[in-house]
């Protein structure tokens, strides 16, 4: 049996003051993840914290529980990731769990990621006309369509803040599908959004690439989107 202490940054609602509360969780499943612990804690008939005090259920979001939907993004031991992708056994005995900081907290680990979706609408991330299916664009389009909109990349990005003009990779990745698939005037219009809201604000450190839980090849997508070699040389220089 393994015993873990989850040290959770809690907040009853946006108006309330944040506080920390620790919970003990025991399991013999070496594959148990942070999501497993949160589910089990909330399923207890009476939830008590480490000190035996009665506690409110922990607010968090999940859906697929197999790292394919991005719902459960949070900051675990200081690093953003998916709760269902973070095995307890690799995290030490005491594990800190906090909400994503770049978005307003709704309650506990639930945050409002609306800004991320708003940016996509503002940047007109859609195709105005029918796209011609093509083998040539298949691979990049597949990669770019894989974004979970989890927001982990935005959390580590030094240049992103919610509501700012820079959309980060949660905006850049979906745009790169359209850049690949569209042509002519339509493509030029998307490219313009891309330059203004992704390219210009990005420091190209690629902290986002290492963190992306979907494992998307952000560098490849960005190099492809730019067409001109600017990104390529920039990325090379950084390395």
């Amino acid at each position, binding site marked *: 049996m393994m015993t873990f202490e989850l040290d959770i940054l809690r907040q009853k609602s946006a108006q309330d003051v944040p506080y920390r509360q620790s919970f003990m969780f025991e399991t013999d499943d070496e594959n148990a993840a942070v999501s497993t612990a949160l589910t089990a804690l909330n399923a207890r008939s009476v939830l008590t914290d480490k000190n035996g005090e009665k506690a409110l259920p922990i607010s968090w979001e999940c859906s697929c529980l197999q790292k394919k939907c991005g719902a459960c993004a949070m900051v675990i031991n200081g690093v953003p990731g998916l709760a269902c992708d973070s095995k307890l056994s690799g995290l030490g005995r005491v594990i800190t769990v906090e909400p994503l900081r770049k978005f307003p907290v709704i309650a506990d680990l639930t945050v409002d990621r609306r800004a991320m979706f708003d940016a996509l609408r503002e940047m007109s991330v859609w195709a105005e006309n029918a*796209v011609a299916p093509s*083998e040539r664009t298949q691979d990049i389009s597949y990669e770019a369509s894989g974004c979970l909109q989890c927001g982990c990349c935005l959390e580590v990005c030094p240049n992103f803040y919610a509501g700012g003009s820079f959309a980060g990779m949660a905006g850049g990745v979906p745009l790169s599908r359209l850049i690949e698939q569209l042509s002519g005037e339509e493509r030029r219009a998307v490219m313009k959004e891309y330059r203004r809201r992704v390219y210009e604000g990005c420091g190209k450190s690629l902290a986002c690439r290492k963190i992306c839980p979907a494992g998307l090849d952000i560098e490849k997508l960005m190099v492809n989107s730019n067409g001109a070699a600017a990104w390529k040389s920039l990325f090379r220089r950084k390395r």
Partner: protein
Amino acid sequence: MEKINIIGAGLAGLTAAITLAKGGRHCRLISLQPSERAQSVLAEGGINAALDVMGEGDSTEYHFEDTMRGGVYLADETAVRRLTDAAPDTVKWLASLGVPFNMADGHIVQRNFGGQKKKRTAYAKSSTGKMLMTALIDETRKYEAAGLVERYPHHEFVTAVTEGGECTGAVVRDRYSGSTVLFGGRVIMCCGGLAGLFPSMTTGTTQNSGYAAARLFEQGVRFSNAEMLQYHPTTIGIPDKRCLVTEAARGEGGRLYIERGGEKWYFMEEKYPELKNLMPRDVVSREMYFVRREKDCGDTVFLDMTGLSQEIWQKRLPDLRAEIMHYLSIDPAKQPVPVHEGIHYFMGGIHTDAFHRTNIAGLYAAGECTSQYHGANRLGGNSMLGAVFGGKTAAEDILAAAEMTAADETAYSGSETVREPTDAVKRQLGSLLYEGLGIVRSEQGIDKALKKLDELEASEGVFPRMLLGRAMLLSARERRESRGAHYREDFPEKNDALRAPTFAVYRNGRTEIKIGD
């Protein structure tokens, strides 16, 4: 101006919204979480359409026949005809939105999928559902920006509102603010399958709680084929759910065995020398159940993929190996993987006609929450098709009818709330349903489950999910035959006197079950 209320933003909900908006109508797209989190993103295998690009002379007629046969003739013939006829255009439309289907020589490539005689399944590597969703989400955004689609992405369905037998709106609760509003206008339910009735026991998502369907059942919405659950033979137990191991694992040479008297018994190969491990899903699942019951046999069935070549792992199943290693800490190239049949799809659900109308005027339903296309069993690749086409069809029916004069948005003054028991009770209900509605069923087993349900209701009170659960058990009890996914040990044969859907309706505090109209 009437705004149509769409509950659910997966494949069905998105397509309904796009169709309405294209027709110039306003809608609200209401879902517990944003579309990116819907169960539809999990689909891997593909979507069916007789595109006839593989040189096999496929036709919509064959697709129709395979679908009807697969559902063992319980599906709605008119609906299936419309579905299969429209399938090629549906897939072409999806491609025109930018879905990166696998292609070769300038056309979409199609593959074989269980129960179909032709290569008819279009796919995008191993994430077809995610690819469809991304393209549809982007398309929907166009109409959001134009003000035709309003998103309510953290909103929960509370109840349908009916006046004089007609649905005139829906009550919806904002999970973030806690406020509840009444949205006027007709309603399309696109709330997905009933995974939530079986907590931790399905390949689905936690978000599809089953509450919306259960509440509608309580409100008198007619259901059909509620007993029809599809079990997928190869799922692995991961924390809090079952995770699908794709059929391709067996397609590429994976073998099922159980330990018998210290030896590996490759039971599928012995029992079905022709198709072996590639028998239809329900047959494989049942055999797994039976061999586990045999004496001298162990209690675990293994999927042996140790004979697969390096090349197959690298080129054809790369994600699968990584996934199994991640979740089970087992390298499937070196060690057999313990598998178990798991609930994967709900063929039954809200009953609609071929135009997706329910028995309540103004209330429509589409996607996995409905039942018309799949009968007693669904073919892999037909459910995504049914969801996309269903959302479109429901919306088109609304476009063709006159607008309803409906209040726009008002504060809700009624007393209806989401009535759910504790997690512990949900789990108790789930396990008794699982006992009654297992892969192999019997009157005795079903009666036992019903008795447990009586006791649970007596101690915890009656909740909507219990009403629906009871209807599922009673439907399974009423169908005294074996057909498709429904296998009765006490009635192992098909009985053609029962070749009609099982209807369930809740009226005057009673659940009525009837086979056929």
